[in-house]
């Protein structure tokens, strides 16, 4: 080899090398493998491989109690589906229910006790300090009035009994419930009857005619079963007639037979006008007239309410009122329902209409909702607002099962200034306007055993078990464990309470039981004992309060004390109110946006496909948009009595001109909504316009 290697030799070496390389498998294998590498990128998770198992459970996200069939891989739920033949849900699940198994891994889930100071800073906290704080408040309480409020977000569960027992054990504690949707309605109903009557529920299943004042029958969560009864008509079960009366054409109005776009805040006038039409048309049934004590007084009251001028402002024609009145009185199975979020006067007017149409105690009408055996009576328990102001040093809030929202301002108002703390047992941390709040991680659906009390579209109640389908997170609590930790005393475990409850049901010897393995419902007493019933419920079955005696209508009064004056005042207010140029109408959010329901995949129907209004958007009619020279997708500013907030404009022809439709509980609108329901804004709203009609102004940002 000569001493120096010349540059040319290196070139020749390289040339030979390249030819050698091309003839070796190296480049081709690297090419092939790099393509395969792009198919198995390590940073993209792979589905687990393992045996597929099926189990059944009950969805506990809302009060519908739908049956769930859970498909698990390697012991972890992979997908949920409705349980065919389930009496409460007949094989359906709503969009939110389908994602119940994702809530466990929601990014904003609380997994260890945290302490939130003045609403924002979060620091980890440990149970000892929390328990110490509660005990300190417990021992320091001297005066007779309770210092600790134990608030149950969803009464009627087995856990509710535990909370009540705690209130009994501790003199300084008192049991309370979150504001119940049907609660206001029940109080109003009770005023009409002399004798004690239970709660009532609308029997949509058998109704042939439904007149709804803005009730979200097919809107979003909890309504899958109702949507099925309303729309999945078969030859045996033709589709009922649905008349929807509400300002904005919601999804229910969209599938309704007729939608009557009334001006917002005038629903009560329409209801009273229909009632008057029934009476003056002498269509009131004799049975109803016999039971009523003040039928003549009602006719006179309605007459001197002088409704026609108010009706003209409602936007509903007289012919339409007569037609509804006639069909209500002719159709034996008919019911009138109102939106749970409707103001008091609409609830009472709708109740009056039901009484006039005689829909109580009738199949397809309003049926009495029996007591859930084994659950304490919570209908007359007080809410947080009933406690006197600044009297509480601790509020214990059990939000392990999502319930109605408690207005944020109420907490600050009820706590002792400066020293009050709120201890909430919740899977997600909803900050509240209080100096110190402790959040103790609660289990979500599928992590721990809980019971579900459901009401079906037919107004029947059921008890089902939400079985644990995935390994529970180490330091999350259910109510029993939480109370055990807080009181330091040994509390009965959830399982024991549930067993007692099932025993109560079994001994009650009332109602039917759905067993997934057998096609038909079997009566309770057909089961050998509590254990047999327990095993059926654990395998996804549920107890349902079976065929009830129709029951007879007791004596009642149309106009209990105070109702007449209240209605007169509201009708006068509606007559006097001047229609605002632009009114904000807050509709219930079909997806219930707060964290308890908002799994990450919900973006598929919100931000990613625009099926539901994205966060921070308001919908207006294209003509209104042109009137305020605001374009689609523009950023605009919405001002409500001086408080301005940035919103995003979406054009939508289902919103009548002159109205701005916003979803409650989401982003900027939530801020406005909290201001609206906040005492300060509410009072400012002019006395004449009903609280649900809020004048606003809108301009391009």
């Amino acid at each position, binding site marked *: 080899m*000569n001493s120096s290697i010349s540059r*040319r*030799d*290196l070139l*020749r*070496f*390289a*040339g*030979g*090398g*390249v*030819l*050698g*390389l091309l*003839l*070796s*498998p*190296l480049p081709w*294998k*690297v090419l*092939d*493998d*790099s393509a*395969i*590498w792009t*198919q*198995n990128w*390590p940073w993209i998770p*792979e*589905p687990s*491989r393992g*045996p*597929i198992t099926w189990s059944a459970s009950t969805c506990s996200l809302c009060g519908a109690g739908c049956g769930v069939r859970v498909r698990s891989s390697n012991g972890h739920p992979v997908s949920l589906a409705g349980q065919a033949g389930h009496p409460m849900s007949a094989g359906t699940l709503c969009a939110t229910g389908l994602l119940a198994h994702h809530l466990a891994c929601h990014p904003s889930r609380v997994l260890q006790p945290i302490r939130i100071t003045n609403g924002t800073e979060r620091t980890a906290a440990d149970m000892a300090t929390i328990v110490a704080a509660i005990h300190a408040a417990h021992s320091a309480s001297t005066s007779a009035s309770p210092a600790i409020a134990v608030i149950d977000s969803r009464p009627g569960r087995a856990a509710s009994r535990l909370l009540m027992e705690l209130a009994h054990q501790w003199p300084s504690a008192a049991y309370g419930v979150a504001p119940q949707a049907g609660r206001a309605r029940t109080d109003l109903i009770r005023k009409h009857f002399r004798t004690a009557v239970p709660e009532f529920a609308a029997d949509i299943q058998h109704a042939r005619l439904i007149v709804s004042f803005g009730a979200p029958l097919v809107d979003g969560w909890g309504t899958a079963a109702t949507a099925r009864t309303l729309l999945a008509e078969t030859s045996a079960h033709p589709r009922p007639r649905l008349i929807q009366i509400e300002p904005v054409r919601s999804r229910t109005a969209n599938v309704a037979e007729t939608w009557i776009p009334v001006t917002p805040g005038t629903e009560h006038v329409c209801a009273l006008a229909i009632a008057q039409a029934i009476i003056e048309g002498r269509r009131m049934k004799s049975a109803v007239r016999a039971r009523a004590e003040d039928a003549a007084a009602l006719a006179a009251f309605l007459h001197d309410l002088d409704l026609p001028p108010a009706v003209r402002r409602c936007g509903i024609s007289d012919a339409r009122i007569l037609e509804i009145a006639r069909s209500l009185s002719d159709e034996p199975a008919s019911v009138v329902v109102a939106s749970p979020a409707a103001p008091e006067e609409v609830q009472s007017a709708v109740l009056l209409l039901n009484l006039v149409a005689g829909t109580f105690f009738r199949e397809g009408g309003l049926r009495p909702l029996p007591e859930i055996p084994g659950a304490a009576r919570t209908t007359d328990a007080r809410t947080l607002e009933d406690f006197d102001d600044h009297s509480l040093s601790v509020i214990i809030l059990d939000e392990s099962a999502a319930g109605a929202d408690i207005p944020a301002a109420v907490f600050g108002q009820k706590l002792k200034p400066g020293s009050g703390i709120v201890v909430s047992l919740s899977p997600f941390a909803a900050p509240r306007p209080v100096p110190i709040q402790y959040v103790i991680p609660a289990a979500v659906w599928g992590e721990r055993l809980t019971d579900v009390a459901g009401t079906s579209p037919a107004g029947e109640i059921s008890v089902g078990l939400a079985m644990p389908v995935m390994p529970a997170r180490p330091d999350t609590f259910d109510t029993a464990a939480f109370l055990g930790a807080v009181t330091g005393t040994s509390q009965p475990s959830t399982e024991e309470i549930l067993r007692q409850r099932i025993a109560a049901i079994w001994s009650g010897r009332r109602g039917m039981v759905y067993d997934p393995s057998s096609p038909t419902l079997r009566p309770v007493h057909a089961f050998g004992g509590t254990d047999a019933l327990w095993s059926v419920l654990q395998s996804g079955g549920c107890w349902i309060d079976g065929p009830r005696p129709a029951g007879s209508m007791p004596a009642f009064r149309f106009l209990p004390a105070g109702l007449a004056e209240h209605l007169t005042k509201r009708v006068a207010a509606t007559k006097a109110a001047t229609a605002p140029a632009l009114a904000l109408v807050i509709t219930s959010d079909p997806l219930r946006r707060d964290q308890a329901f908002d799994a990450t995949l919900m973006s598929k129907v919100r931000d990613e496909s625009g099926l539901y209004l994205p966060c921070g958007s308001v919908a207006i009619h294209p003509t209104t948009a042109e009137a305020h020279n605001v374009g689609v997708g523009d950023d605009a500013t919405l001002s409500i009595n001086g408080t301005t907030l940035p919103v995003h404009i979406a054009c939508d022809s289902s919103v009548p001109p002159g109205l701005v439709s916003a979803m409650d509980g989401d982003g900027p609108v939530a801020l406005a909504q909290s201001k609206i329901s906040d005492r300060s804004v509410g009072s400012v709203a002019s006395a004449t316009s009903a609280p649900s009609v809020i004048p606003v102004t809108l301009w391009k940002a």
Partner: protein
Amino acid sequence: MKSIRWFVAGFVVMMLFGWVIFPAILYTHEEQPLQFSHKVHSGETVGLPCQDCHRLSADGRFEGVPAIAKCAECHAEAIGSTADERLLVEEYVKKGREIPWLVYARGPQNASFPHASHLIGAGLACERCHGSQGTAESLPAFRRNRISGESQAIWGTSIAGFKMAEWDGMKMDDCARCHRERGVANTCLKCHK
């Protein structure tokens, strides 16, 4: 002719690298978490049938390598004296932890291989694709392709893809050829999931 020598030198060096050194460094050599002797279990000493551990469940899914529960049936306590068995009992059976086996025939994530259709539907024998198993005293080293992350059993032992035996390599082309020979449809939807 001096110039050709360099050319040939370069050629030979690269061919050697491509055919010999590259296959060696392309695949890793990973040992299994613990040794397992098929010979003992399925041979005369214990005489378990293959289907006992490698079961086909009712819904057509193949269990493949058995879960720890299967081992725990016999090995709740140490039976033999080997170190591996002690490791099995302490580390995995007692703690209820699954053994992180490195599965040789682990197919890619995007293709589904329904064992039911092949074992029952087509009546194929396991050896057809996996080669003779169940007689080895110990488990061979798991060889993973450093670039694509797949087991070497997929591409096959020869770097150029020539199949030494029927079971050597289970690439898409191999499956497609067998499907074609038997007149079974080999559309994408048949296997890709």
